[in-house]
């Protein structure tokens, strides 16, 4: 498929699902009412509040989170040259969650509101850096996954410790929220908190495309083509930390988006890493917005966690991918 056509198609799909997201909620609204409410001309001012202030920020934040996860998944896979790399599996998301929890429960975010996303991004960066140091260049699948599991487990354990140390009666259910993610009751406050950092991350990640293409031929060839491989790694780490950190700080950790989306789209861009970046961002946005629609549509006593749905899709996918890779490595 033509690159431009693919991007256009994904953009149209994303817009469509964003619109559908505005139609979903506890209060039933017709499409017509929703559109009118979106532009502030609905008959009932309460509908305007619901669409503009409750559903719209939720949809936008969902798209932002999905874009961050999809894009960073594509970059990590290109950088590590392994289709199993993604922020959840590499432990980046868990580390971001740890950073956020530390900022929350030790009161830094009360003193200084930006402390929360900054801490999340900082820890995400540390986690990704550790991943590189341990799994390193050309890491095989096994090393990569094991390192990611180790980092993830460490981050979760430290998060749980931090919660134990804080006098919070809701600690356990908060853990669940951090580990599985939720867009429930998010507002434009969350959007404006995350957007600058996420956007900065996206911009930085976008510049890695050229280097990732060269890297697909190996590090030496890439270096001989003028790519500064160390700098590429650093850009990828910083960009991922910013984008994923900002996403996790507002929503918790939503897994497998960065795994599924690039993998599905890669054949459509003929496996070229730089061509995968923008489509993965759009695809990630679509996936998370869809999951968020499903979470509100599926009847249950309390709202399902977002990460549950992405895991239900992502884990079978992950297992199938492992099998496929094992089979081809033979």
């Amino acid at each position, binding site marked *: 498929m033509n690159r431009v056509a693919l991007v256009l198609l994904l953009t149209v799909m994303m817009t469509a699902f964003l619109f559908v997201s505005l139609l979903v*909620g*506890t*209060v039933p609204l017709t499409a017509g009412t929703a559109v009118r409410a979106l532009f502030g001309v609905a008959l009932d001012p*309460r509908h305007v*509040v*619901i669409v503009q*202030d*409750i559903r719209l920020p939720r949809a936008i934040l969902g798209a932002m989170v999905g874009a961050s996860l999809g894009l960073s998944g594509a970059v990590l896979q290109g950088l590590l040259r392994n289709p199993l790399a993604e922020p959840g599996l590499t432990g980046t998301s868990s580390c971001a969650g740890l950073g*956020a929890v530390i900022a*929350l*429960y030790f*009161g830094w*975010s*009360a003193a200084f*509101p930006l402390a*929360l996303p900054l801490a999340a991004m900082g820890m995400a960066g540390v986690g990704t850096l550790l991943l590189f140091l341990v799994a390193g260049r050309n890491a095989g699948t096994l090393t990569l996954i094991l390192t990611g599991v180790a980092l993830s487990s460490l981050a979760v354990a430290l998060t749980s410790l931090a919660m134990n140390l*804080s006098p*919070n009666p*809701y600690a356990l*259910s*908060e853990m669940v*929220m*951090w580990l599985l993610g*939720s867009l*429930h*009751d*998010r*507002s*434009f*406050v*969350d959007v404006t908190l995350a957007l600058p950092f996420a956007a900065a991350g996206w911009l930085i990640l976008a510049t890695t495309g050229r280097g990732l293409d060269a890297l697909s031929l190996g590090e030496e060839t890439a270096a001989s083509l003028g790519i500064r491989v160390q700098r590429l790694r650093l850009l990828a780490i910083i960009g991922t930390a910013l984008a994923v950190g900002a996403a996790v700080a507002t929503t*918790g950790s939503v897994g497998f988006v960065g795994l599924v989306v690039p993998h599905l789209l890669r054949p459509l861009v003929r496996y070229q890493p730089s061509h995968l970046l923008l489509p993965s961002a759009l695809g990630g946005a679509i996936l998370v917005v869809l999951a968020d629609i499903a979470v509100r549509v599926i009847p249950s006593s*309390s709202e399902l966690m977002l990460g549950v749905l992405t895991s239900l899709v992502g884990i079978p996918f992950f297992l199938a991918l492992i099998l496929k890779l094992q089979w081809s490595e033979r």
Partner: protein
Amino acid sequence: MPARPGSTTNGGGPRPVLRIASILAVVAVAAAAKAEPSSRPTIASIDLCADQAVVALADPGSIAGLSRWARDVNLSPVAPVAGNLPSLAESAESVLMSGASTVVADTYGDAKTFALLDRIGVTIFRMPAADSFAEVFVALRLIARDLHEEAKERILEADLSTRLDRLQASLPPQRPRAAYVRADGGTAGDGTAVDAALAAAGYRNLATDLGIHGWGRLDLETLVMSPPDVFVTSSFSSRRWSLHDAFGRHPVFRDMEARVPTVVVPARLWSCGGWPLVQAAETLAAARREPR
């Protein structure tokens, strides 16, 4: 929570202490009237809800210790007197060291702890949860019977009933709609202590109107469509920001909160279904009389 335009708050300050002091005074008089020097078994409480019953009913000299939450001013209505008493953990070891031969606990708690205590020979009384005033009295009576303090209980119950009757009598005819909210959007519907107190104070409970039974969640969109006349909150002012409290941070909720009067009922009055619930109802009723 700082005062906001259009909000009312409870009296706070000395009133709760006066209430407890008055109850203890009543109880002390009754105990003096009996004046039996017989050795009572020493009594310990290891749960927050049990603390209230034990302090209200047991002879002060026979209390071996209270739960570790007893001194928490936010959670425990007996905090003022808890300072003088040992603080116990929820473990068999702790109870043993306190020298108690009787333990009062609520219906939850680690079964293993109780099994162990039982094997050691400690008597355990479980206090049933109370979600209405009737159940509060039932629980008090049960514990009073276990502790052989029926007389005290009758005095206490009489006092509480009188206050409830006075409350009912003083209510204006309108029944405004109240929404009890926690920072995470949680609410209390039909069949909760909160609901009972709201009803006693002459409010309609928005959660019950929405069909919520027991503890549930208020949905922000639903709240926008059916705004309450009054918000009732307990421990909103958690200075810690948390993912959980997205509801309480949402600008839509904040706007509503600014426009709608809020009554604050300290969490300690209804964190358990116990005798302080009456004071919760009184606080709610008082708020209706105060000028907006």
